[in-house]
């Protein structure tokens, strides 16, 4: 939103007298207006000379505020939007797709939780390759230098099943669809995400289907704790930004998280209680070293019971 001064040019009714009136109440921006009682403001204009003009100014601001929040939609419109715009992205792994009833859902933030070497990064590579080959753009935010083009090449070759000599074209196309950014702290992450937001708003041809943040916990865990609340505030801001990107631009977001010790020696996902409320879908990965098979279990899902699980292999 912003300062009231910037509205002066667009709306004639917001003139310097109105700005002075607002300043006397400590209102300098539209946000300030939100924490004041409108009726009290209107009542306070009564004693002043040009109360009608001031009231019109207040009404103008209220109509600006009306456009500020997301519009109200009824259930039918929501359902239609979901059916038409928010598709499932196939993950390339059949058992994953069956578990999630189609794959990664656009509009959802999916969290992959698991102890070390439970396959989280490999699964992310699998998702990225499949989506880049068949469906559209992928943005990979890498916090631990784990992105490996050689490994992606292996996966793409495996998925396409083509012969050696025909692979180049497909591989080039897939790699061109992946945008990889190295982010080493939460501010860099916020920066990249804001840039993506701007690009998606302004460029019509730019289409991203999947955003992967590997791993979000290594960016956020170091700033949590301590006596102030900034760390948690940044964590929640990142969460909301991801949810907004997912919902407004019909993107599937995948983030990975590690595990820490909990009560009685069991492991629990890192980032604490406040993070639990942020992802739509939480999946726990584990590896059975003896059989070289990975397992994924649903911890939380908007419409499926938790506890459902499946096994899969990583080629």
């Amino acid at each position, binding site marked *: 939103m912003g300062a009231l001064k910037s509205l002066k040019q667009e709306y004639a009714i917001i003139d310097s007298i109105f700005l002075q009136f607002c300043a006397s109440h400590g209102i300098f921006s539209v946000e300030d207006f939100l*924490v004041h009682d409108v009726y009290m403001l209107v009542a306070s204009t009564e004693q002043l000379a040009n109360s009608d003009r001031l009231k019109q100014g207040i009404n103008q601001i209220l109509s600006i505020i009306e456009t500020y*929040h*997301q519009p109200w939609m009824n*259930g039918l419109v929501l359902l239609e939007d979901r059916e038409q715009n928010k598709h499932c992205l196939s993950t390339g792994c059949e058992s994953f797709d069956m578990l999630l009833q189609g794959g990664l859902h656009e509009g959802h933030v999916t969290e992959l939780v698991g102890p070390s070497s439970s396959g989280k990064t490999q699964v992310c590579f699998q998702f990225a390759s499949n989506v880049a080959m068949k469906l559209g753009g992928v943005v990979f935010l890498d916090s631990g230098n784990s992105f490996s083009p050689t490994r992606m090449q292996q996966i793409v070759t495996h998925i396409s099943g083509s012969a050696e000599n025909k692979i180049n074209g497909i591989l080039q196309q897939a790699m061109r669809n992946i945008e990889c950014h190295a982010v080493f702290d939460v501010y860099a992450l916020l920066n990249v995400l804001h840039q993506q937001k701007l690009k998606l708003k302004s460029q019509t041809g730019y289409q991203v289907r999947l955003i992967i943040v590997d791993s979000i916990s290594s960016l956020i865990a170091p700033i949590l704790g301590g006596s102030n609340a900034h760390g948690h505030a940044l964590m*929640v801001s990142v969460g*909301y930004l991801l*949810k907004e990107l997912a919902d407004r631009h019909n993107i599937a977001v995948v983030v990975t998280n590690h595990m820490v010790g909990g009560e009685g020696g069991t492991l629990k996902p890192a980032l604490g209680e406040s993070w639990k409320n942020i992802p739509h879908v939480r999946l726990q990965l584990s590896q059975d070293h003896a059989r070289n098979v990975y397992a994924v279990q649903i911890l939380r899902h908007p419409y499926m019971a*938790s506890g459902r699980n499946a096994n899969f292999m990583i080629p």
Partner: protein
Amino acid sequence: MAKRWINGDESAKQMLGRVLKERPLLLLPHPLHRIPLVVSNIVEIVGPSPSAKTEILLQVAVSCILPKSWNGVQYGGLEHSVLFLDLDCRLDIFRLSHCLKLRITEANRLHKITKKQKGFDVSNHIPEHQCKYDDMDLFTECMKRFSYTRCYDSFEFLAALKVLHHKLEKERNMDGSGVHVLMIDNIGAFYWINRGFSSLPQGNPNRKNFSLQSVFETVVPEIKKLLLLHPMLVLATKMVTYQVKSSYSSWVSGVASEVNIGKGTYREYMPSIWQSFVTHRILVRASDDKRKLQDRVCYLAEWLLPALNLTDEFVVGDAGILMSL
């Protein structure tokens, strides 16, 4: 003259009739069934994550948007509109539509069975596709009663509340007055953001900062003003971090912590203006001993305000919430 003052305005029976018409009792589905609620009650559903709080709101929403009866079939709904303010930005409409469809099908099925029992002729005079159209019409009618918006920060939340009055006025002029149910999913969603960023300097001493305190000092009066003009029941969920007081020795010895059910504590972080605004409070949480009934997690519900010393147990099934007896 004096006699007129002594003769009452209306009898108790007349008063009860009038009050029940203007402020009807709302009997909500499980687990909110123990206390009859009235419009202008503010109910807070408190619990750690995950504890089926949003699921409870969705089941109440389904019961509200269904009509009492339609085409002769009893659906048992309240026929109220629902306004859902999603501060968690996490609702998936599929769950609501799925439960609604299941409820409609179930009610139709029961209707057929009772007709058969009463000896009516059940051979379908109405062709199959007509039934489907009727069901779709009903489904559409119900879904239209559910209004949804999401708020990505407290500014959007405040903006939505400030202009809600105009939206409701417009609707009232079109459809006539109806009761609404306002649902807020996770009233504590912006706690950390407001806390973390409220200490930023504002420059001018007159300016209000955006701490949780000042945001709620505006939210509560806005809701009160809305309630004066539009009768509404307000249901808000609140996420809390729930700490069960369990002694170290009990986990070391592996004894089930049956002594701690209901005796855990949770930290209240909402400002006092909100706490005193709430008229009813219910606590839900996953059952302590992590029992599973038919492979589904059990949850416990306990009314804290008014304090009933009863704990109800429930599971979340495909069609909705089922109480385990």
